[in-house]
């Protein structure tokens, strides 16, 4: 599968198909992460985040591939992992190669307080918000899937979840300013 085919699949939201062409990246990412204080789970997580970054780039239309896709993703992974390690305060990258210098990668953290605030939500809230905002499901469908007795309750629950996420966000901002 060529890089362009993969990008085309991602443009068309065909995640599984796209992944068929990218899956073989995972072992090398695992190797890199485990060499830098990470676990296999971290590797998978960072890989997913990298795919999200790629997907978003593609969908914002700003994406111009100047290097092979694999190289690009590797660079994104390294960048993300660096951010993560900074967050964990263990900045120690044993990497002799410097292939990230070949092109620019946004230094702005892709996953900030909002994502952290979201991740602090309960599983049901997360699912509800994902179903609504990402999957664009109706409240009726959401109520059925998440076992709310009716749409209205699902709708009210959504507001409650947003509210909770905002509170988490404010809490997180507070702690980061205190640092």
């Amino acid at each position: 599968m060529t890089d362009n085919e993969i990008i085309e699949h991602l443009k068309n939201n065909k995640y599984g198909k796209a992944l068929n062409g990218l899956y073989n990246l995972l072992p090398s990412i695992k190797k890199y992460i485990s060499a830098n204080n990470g676990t296999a789970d971290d590797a998978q997580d960072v890989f997913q985040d990298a795919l999200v970054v790629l997907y978003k780039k593609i969908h914002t239309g700003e994406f111009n591939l100047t290097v092979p896709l694999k190289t690009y993703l590797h660079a994104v992974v390294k960048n993300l992992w660096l951010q993560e390690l900074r967050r964990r305060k263990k900045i120690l990258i044993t990497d002799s190669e410097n292939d990230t210098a070949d092109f620019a990668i946004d230094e702005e953290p892709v996953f900030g307080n909002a994502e952290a605030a979201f991740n602090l939500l309960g599983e049901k809230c997360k699912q509800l918000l994902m179903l609504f905002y990402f999957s664009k499901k109706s409240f009726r469908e959401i109520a059925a899937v998440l076992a709310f007795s009716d749409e209205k309750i699902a709708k009210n629950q959504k507001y409650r979840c947003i509210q909770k996420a905002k509170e988490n966000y404010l809490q997180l901002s507070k702690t980061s300013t205190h640092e």
Partner: protein
Amino acid sequence: MNNNSILIDRYLQNEMGADEKAVFENQLAADKNLLEELAMQQQIIKAAETAGLKNEFAKAIKKRIVTRRLIKWGAIITIAVAAFVFYMIKTNLFTHNGNSEGNKETKSFPASEKFDINNSSDTIIETKDGVVFAIPAHAFNSNNTIQLEIKTALNPYYIMQNGLSTMSNNDMLQTAGMFYINGYDNGKQVLLQKEIAVSVPAKNINPAMQLFDGVKDSTGRINWVNPKPVEKRLRTYDITTLDFYPPRYIPTLKALQKNSQNKKYIDSLYYSFSGWPFFRKPYMEVGSIYFPENSALDQYQKDSMYKEQQEMVDKYNKEQQSHEFHYEINPAKIKAIWDKKFNNTIVATKEFEERLKYLHSLCTDEYLNAYLENLNKPLYVIDELIAKNSYGDIKKKFLEFASHKHGGVFVADALQQKLSNYFQQKSKAYKEAAEKTWIKYQAELQRINNIANVKNREEALRNFTREENNFKEELCINLTNAYKQIGVNKNCNDTIVPPADKYYNVTITTTGWKNLDVYVFDATKNRQSMEYKDPATGKTAKLIYKEVAIKIENEQQYDRVLVYLIPDGLSSFQLMQKKENSFKEGLNSLFSYDAIVLAYKGEQVYFYRQTSMQTKEYTFSLSPANEQSIKNILQVYASNKVKDVTAEFEYRLFEQKEALRQMQLRKDEDFREKIAASIFNCGGEGESPRPIESQTK
């Protein structure tokens, strides 16, 4: 901030009308905080979208890790819940082309799990998701090893994201998970010919959940059809560990401080109410009345006693008829089912126990019978049946029971019949045995009561005779003495003792004497002194009665105290009357008196004897004594006195025993009344419900 979340969301979702939007945008322009909040909310929404996206990649990666090939779906069966489910496998309902990869409807399902099972034995398998399949021997139409293919999808988000439809004829279903199962014999699909029990794990059980079959419609989506209620298979317990008593029975026993731990006792007490008189017809019969051999009663008295008793029995029976309790659950029925024979039936379940508590509060056993006659049906089916045939609160309650969808316990028809017969026979036998016991007990009570009645009457007769004789004798002696004082020699036999009511009608033949007779009569009757001056002779006749008072030390400690005077001049004794707090009587100065005190406390007799009483105040301190020694002491008196006093003593002994017996009886009856009230609820008061059958008509 609360309201802002909604406003902001509506704004971001473009749900506001133009006017509202303009107002809100003005607000945003003016309020920096609101603007910040809007930005924050936008970020949160973005985070949700990112998370959703990430989740997609996670799934895709996971899928790659788990399986490298696409699964061909043969059929999918979803259940909308989790519990114990029977279902039939439908084959070839839903086939997907493996090449239509872009269609995310099916491709992301978890890998199928494969199991090789021996078709000739019972097999239980558990999937990685924790779904348990109980496959009976020969469930599949094959003699060989069966390759079982099972797929499960329990996570709602998973189901949704994989586009697995939860539509049923355009209605949205709430799902508790889906599963798929198929069996193959060397790659060839085999038919399912027996029911497989499936348990799907669930956090909370929603009783409204149903099992649907998945059918692929023309557009390739699965439509869920043919819903069947998901019943909860019931777990049976050792029946002897369940509680089938009426709910108020044990608490009442506890309140009465009876041993509520002794199962044998509480069982036998409860079952003894199987023969509670309310169930009995005829209620009571007049027994033959026992008369002692030398009974002093004449035929007329005996006849009137019999008549009186007949009236009493009629009255009793009439009262009882208005208190018919036979609508209630007879304890004999409970005894019949509370038996190990009913282990492994719906009776031996907590769910039945719960229902029985309610059934006990109803004024009929029809509902109980409905369960017992349908042991091979699921509880909720019987609940529904009863609800259909009842009304009001009862209907509501049984509908509520039915809504729990409590299932059944497999009982073979033959066994159901056997148990039903067993129940009928046993409950009848227990009921009859208890009734027999009750009748026997009542007959014995009746016999004892009859004896007591006869003895009471005889005592009354004896007392009457004795008092009459005493009076006659004392009057005679007083008259003789009084006449002697006025110088007339007169035997009392010469005088016709005037019966009081006839006296004034007697023709007076001689003056004077009659006057004296009247004075003496009044004095004797009132036990008061008199003085009579004979107008003819001028002589004075005096009769002197002086009062003696006897107090008994600690009198209140005895159940009963009787003080007798034994005058030397009379052939019998006198019973002293109690006035205020002492026994008082006028003593005739012509006689010498002994006093005998007999007191009874429980079964113990206390005795005191005082010879040659003075007219003063005594206080006697009694001592315990046995029956025989008292009888021996009484032998000092003349033979006819001995006879009377002994008869009196024996009667009083009997009376005391009878009083104790009555007391115990009342206590027993009181106790049994209280217990009965805790077992039976309806009394004769409540409205008798119509039996189920008549309601259906």
